[in-house]
């Protein structure tokens, strides 16, 4: 059978053999734990504890600050030392609850429940109360994602086990080590969508995971395992929907618009924990890897632990590495400091002893078309980058620049080593901001004319 996939894409160096055979180990929590209040898309969470409060593991630290927002829980027991701005992995600052870990691991009471006993509303409530967000990096609140306008139209629930980013192996380990929990998690989601089938979509460079999930789901009517062609960015939301369902969506649409729901492997695990075990999101799995790490590893971490501790637990750095990346090499971001907390969306600490990018010499575009051939969105990155460099946002828009998913394939492919993704990204940001401004102005004008503000 032809392997399911999408058109375009690239085949970067995989680097997964560094850590794929490493069983997941538990990383002990730090003495000082930091819980930033923005760990999902949308409004920041509102703290419900104050300085000096004693908190238990699993206790709510902050509640959702709006409809699109998420709850945050303590992953240790201890005392709230401060609520103050702290630096994040991205380099920005964010209000954070800082907790002094007493090391006792005292927990609040968790309330397990069986799937049969729960209604759809109760399931969504538990996902929301558990603070579950998309853990593949996007950080969209899962409870919002699981409550589309048209639940009866959803016919595909896709567990994204593509793990197409090079070097990452944590989803692979999760599937091998906690496969049963993932099946249960998918069953929880399927209960919300009566006409849906569930799919474990896994790239074929992980045959063990495909075989394992097949064994676990044998005979299950509603669940299938779908091997995907190994190709970056196969695990992108749009590309994985295309591969599994054959349907395409653009930047203005949600997966639900084409009848699909996509959740990352670790998110599905957290859904299972939150709904069936009553345990909020307090831990996640990460890969610490790269040629700058002594003993590459997969580890379960308490959220709030610092990246520095994770590196130490992996044997420390080799020499003095030049580059530290949060996430994978294609879409992750370079870090300024390791003394920042691991959050819900942290999937990987990648350490490069030498920074290959800083040594590259950019040269002139030779119009070779490789950037376009690799683009999963069928864009013309070379021309978009030219528009960006010229500041010509109108042409950028006409060439569909807003459809870019910032996957990095174009920059990777370019023989002239042009920073295409970077240029496109910045024009995209500008254009989005301009459009937002224009929309607001139009709204204000309409309001003036009509003499009243229509409710949106």
């Amino acid at each position, binding site marked *: 059978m032809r392997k399911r996939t*999408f058109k375009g894409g*690239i085949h970067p160096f995989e680097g997964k053999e560094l850590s794929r055979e490493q069983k997941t180990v538990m990383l002990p929590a730090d003495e000082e734990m930091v819980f930033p209040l923005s760990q999902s898309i949308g409004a920041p969470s509102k703290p419900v504890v104050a300085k000096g409060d004693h908190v238990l593991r699993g206790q709510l630290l902050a509640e959702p600050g709006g409809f699109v927002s998420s709850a945050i829980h303590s992953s240790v027991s201890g005392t709230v030392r401060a609520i103050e701005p702290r630096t994040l992995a991205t380099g920005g600052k964010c209000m954070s609850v800082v907790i002094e870990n007493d090391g006792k691991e005292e927990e609040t009471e968790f309330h397990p429940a069986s799937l049969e006993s729960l209604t759809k509303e109760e399931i969504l409530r538990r996902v929301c109360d558990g603070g579950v967000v998309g853990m593949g990096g996007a950080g969209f609140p899962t409870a919002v994602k699981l409550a589309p306008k048209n639940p009866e139209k959803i016919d595909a629930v896709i567990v994204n086990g593509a793990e197409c980013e090079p070097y990452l192996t944590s989803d692979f380990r999760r599937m091998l080590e906690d496969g049963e929990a993932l099946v249960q998690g998918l069953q929880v989601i399927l209960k919300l969508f009566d006409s849906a089938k569930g799919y474990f979509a896994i790239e074929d460079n992980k045959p063990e995971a495909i075989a394992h999930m097949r064994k676990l789901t044998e005979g299950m009517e509603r669940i299938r395992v779908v091997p995907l062609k190994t190709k970056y960015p196969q695990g992108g939301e749009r590309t994985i929907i295309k591969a599994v369902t054959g349907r395409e969506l*653009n930047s203005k649409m949600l997966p639900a618009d084409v009848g699909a729901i996509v959740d990352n492997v670790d998110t599905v695990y957290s859904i299972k924990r939150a709904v069936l075990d009553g345990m909020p999101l307090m831990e996640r799995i990460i890969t610490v890897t790269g040629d700058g790490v002594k003993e590459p590893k997969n580890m379960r971490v308490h959220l709030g632990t610092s990246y520095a501790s994770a590196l130490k637990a992996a044997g420390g750095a080799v020499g003095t590495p030049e580059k530290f990346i949060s996430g994978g090499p*294609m879409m*992750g971001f370079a870090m300024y*400091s390791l003394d920042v907390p691991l959050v819900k969306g942290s999937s990987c600490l990648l350490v490069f002893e030498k920074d290959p990018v800083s040594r590259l010499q950019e040269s002139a575009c030779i119009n070779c078309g490789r950037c376009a051939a690799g683009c999963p969105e069928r864009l*013309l990155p070379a021309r978009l980058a030219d528009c960006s460099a010229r500041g010509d946002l109108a042409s950028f828009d006409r060439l569909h620049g807003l459809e870019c998913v910032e996957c990095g394939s174009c920059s990777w492919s370019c023989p002239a080593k042009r920073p295409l993704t970077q240029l496109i990204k910045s024009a995209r940001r500008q254009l989005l901001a301009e459009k937002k401004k224009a*929309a607001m102005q139009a709204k204000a004008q309409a309001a003036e004319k009509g003499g009243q503000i229509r409710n949106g």
Partner: protein
Amino acid sequence: MDEFNVSANPHFRSPMTTGSIMRDVLLALTPAALFGIYNFGAPALIRIVVSIAVCVLAEYLFQRGMKRPVTVSDGSAAVTGLLLAMNIPSTLPIAMLIAGDVFAIIIVKQLFGGIGQNFMNPALAARCFLLISFPAAMTGFVYNGVSSATPLAILKPGADAAEGTVSLAAEFLGTTGGTIGETSALALLIGAVYLLARREISWRIPAAYIGTFAILVFFLAPGHSFDALYLAEELCGGGLMLGAFFMATDYVTSPDTPAGKLIFGALAGFLTFIFRMFGGSAEGVSYAIIFSNLLVPLIERATVPKPFGYRKPEKTEAAGKEA
């Protein structure tokens, strides 16, 4: 901690560079170049070496003189030099060849801003320049010591039958008169397969080019329609293989979209047919490609692909207002 390197994603890149691509192109041209040396002897070797050296040197001196970064190490000047040498008769006076090299590098390439900016293929433009400036020297072909007509001249509609005959086998192997690098279809195809297998060139341009030309010749060649042998001879003769695989596929001067590549190839094939069948000279590949090069910006503008998940924009109120 502030000594970390920070840059935008992605954090690693493919090993491919402009230089590695040009090296592949040089390698792919090698079989045909070697055959040219075998076929035409030392004069061919001398012209190949001189042409490459002059192109590289001209680029180096120009960039040094203009205080621009020197980019000869990317290999593109060497490719131009080799291509031009392969496009001239082995009897062309070396001074004329040097003039062509300088024209290619300085006028066509560097004055337009260097690699990536030229809108005509430098080697082809130089060939046309030489054809116009020194027509006799550029079309006087000597083979095995006797001046001889090229296979194409013999095949030309209305040509004097007394000029000789061609054997298809000789044309395919390349043991005929012609320019240094164009005679052996076999050697050129070996290089072409290499470039296609390495994905350095897309199949679209050569397929559209050769396909269009072949269909037109088969059905419409004056006096030779439905003549398969004639078609095979037209395909193997002259600069068609060299042009379709190695010059029409030049990245800089061909369209960057999949549909554009097909249109561009078909256009070049059509023009080659017209020039060869109805034009003043037997050859038409160079002018066909050069002319198509000029239309590339237009083709590129007209063939922007629809992005992934594209939906026709709905006529909304907001869209109406914007317009």
